[in-house]
């Protein structure tokens, strides 16, 4: 990791991040241990590892949704807390977390309202975002009228509404079937190319991580730490044909072996 980009181009810098939870009876769980991770502007980085390896926790630490026990995280050169206050990132959870009482477009407008943007501006921006995820025809629907994949696309539109420089995605397609998931993957890549935003993507699917990412960060459990980083050199733009290239399968094997190696080491 010596040839990392210079600090100015960094979107995320995590150094020496530990996270411990104190459970019942003072049992201490070490979710993260000594995480160092730099992510440059425009990267698409996947965090992959067995359940319990702290990949979601790391994402939340970067988003300042949970504080680290030690170490520190900067986003766009600022402390993570300041970055959250400045709306530097958008987040997509595993569940869509749409508000039942709002229509699709009102859900997308939520962050714009919170920022105090004008009504006309909000409408224009929400329309733009819905066009990006190709849901304009469903703007006036309520979430319950949409399929799971469509709900998740609304969540993505909402996360992108503020044009964040960083998009955090926490197993966003984990609940979807394989076919839908592959379509969503292609769509996320399109959005990534169009917006140029940096993406951190938590997943436990090896093919998904390889298809999407420029780099795959391999983690191991108990304690959660980074055991390997695999550069994904598949050419851009990627599409369904990418999934049939030999290099794609090689990289899948490489990530799989890295995961196994990480497991053995602990």
């Amino acid at each position, binding site marked *: 990791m010596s040839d990392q980009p210079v600090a100015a181009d960094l979107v995320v810098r995590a150094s020496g991040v530990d996270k411990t939870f104190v459970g019942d009876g003072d049992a201490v769980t070490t979710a993260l241990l000594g995480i160092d991770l730099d992510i440059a502007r425009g990267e698409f980085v996947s965090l992959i590892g067995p359940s319990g390896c702290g990949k979601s926790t790391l994402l939340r630490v970067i988003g300042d949704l949970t504080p680290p026990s030690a170490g520190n995280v900067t986003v766009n050169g600022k402390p993570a807390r300041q970055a959250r206050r400045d709306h530097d990132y958008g987040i997509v959870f595993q*569940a*869509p*977390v*749409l*508000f*039942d009482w709002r229509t699709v477009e009102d859900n997308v407008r939520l962050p714009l309202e919170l920022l105090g943007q004008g009504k006309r501006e909000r409408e224009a921006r929400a329309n733009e975002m819905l066009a990006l995820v190709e849901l304009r025809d469903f703007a006036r629907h309520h*979430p319950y009228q949409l399929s799971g994949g469509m709900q998740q696309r609304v969540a993505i539109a909402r996360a992108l509404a503020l044009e964040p420089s960083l998009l955090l995605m926490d197993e966003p397609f984990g609940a979807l079937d394989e076919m839908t998931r592959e379509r969503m993957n292609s769509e996320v890549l399109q959005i990534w190319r169009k917006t140029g935003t940096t993406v951190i993507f938590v997943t436990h699917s090896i093919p998904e991580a390889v298809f999407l990412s420029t780099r795959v960060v391999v983690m191991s459990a108990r304690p959660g730490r980074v055991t390997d980083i695999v550069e994904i050199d598949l050419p851009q733009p990627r599409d369904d044909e990418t999934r049939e290239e030999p290099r794609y399968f090689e990289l899948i094997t490489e990530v799989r072996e890295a995961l196994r190696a990480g497991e053995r080491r602990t």
Partner: protein
Amino acid sequence: MRRSPRPSSIDDPTPHGRVRRVITFVGFFLALLLLWEGAKFVGGDPWRYFGATWRPPLDFSFATDLNLPHVWDVIGAMVRPVQRGTEESLGVFLFGASAYTLREAAIGFAAGGVLGIALAAAFVHSHLLERAFVPYVIASQTVPIVALAPMVVFAFGQDVASVVIIATYLTFFPVTIAMIRGLRSPDPRALELMRSYAASRWSIFWKLRLPASLPYLFTALKISATASIVGAIIGEGPGGIPDGLGRAIINFNQQYVSGPEKLWAAVVASALLGIVFFLLIRLGELLTLRGRRQMVVA
């Protein structure tokens, strides 16, 4: 945004939580007593104790000795005879009356519970029955039962049976509504699993629907416990049942001017009875649902 069942802090099962809850209850109780006597101290009738007199500076009409007797006067009335010429103290009398009313309520509660479960089972298995009768089950609750009570008594006679029927009427509704939801609560996949075993409707009911509905049932039973006591108290008036709390409340209300403490004591007895019955059901719930994940049924 599906909400997963979470243990609520109210039912915090840890010993720490339990201790805190008891302290809270005692605290609230003491605060209530303090408020009670405080109001009398600030705006009630003069206090005359041990030869000294305290004249409250203000004058609240609700805090006079007639409208709000002293706490200790209510307690004192408990140990004095119910009426002149009898041995039995008010406390003993109210205890007997409470037991009598509890018995009526319990019979009505059991009957209403069985009726409620039976109706729900029928509605869950037949959409036709459900669409035909559920609107009237709901409408039945908008009929103020207190208005209906005298009619029930005239129809069934001045008898304990009438009181039980009124208690049943108030009990069955929460059970029916909750059990319709409860019996439908099993995961569709669990129902498919049962069908894959070629299980009959009967065994699906006993092995899947009913166990799945128990948390809903107990939520309803806790509401019904109070409702059945309300029904018994209301029914005793026109029912002419002389031995229960309802009659005691009516009688002491008529003697209010000569002894307001008696009515207050009867009200306190009703409150205690309601809480005791509620706690009994709660205990049953804890024993029955032992080991299950706690869930909050809205």
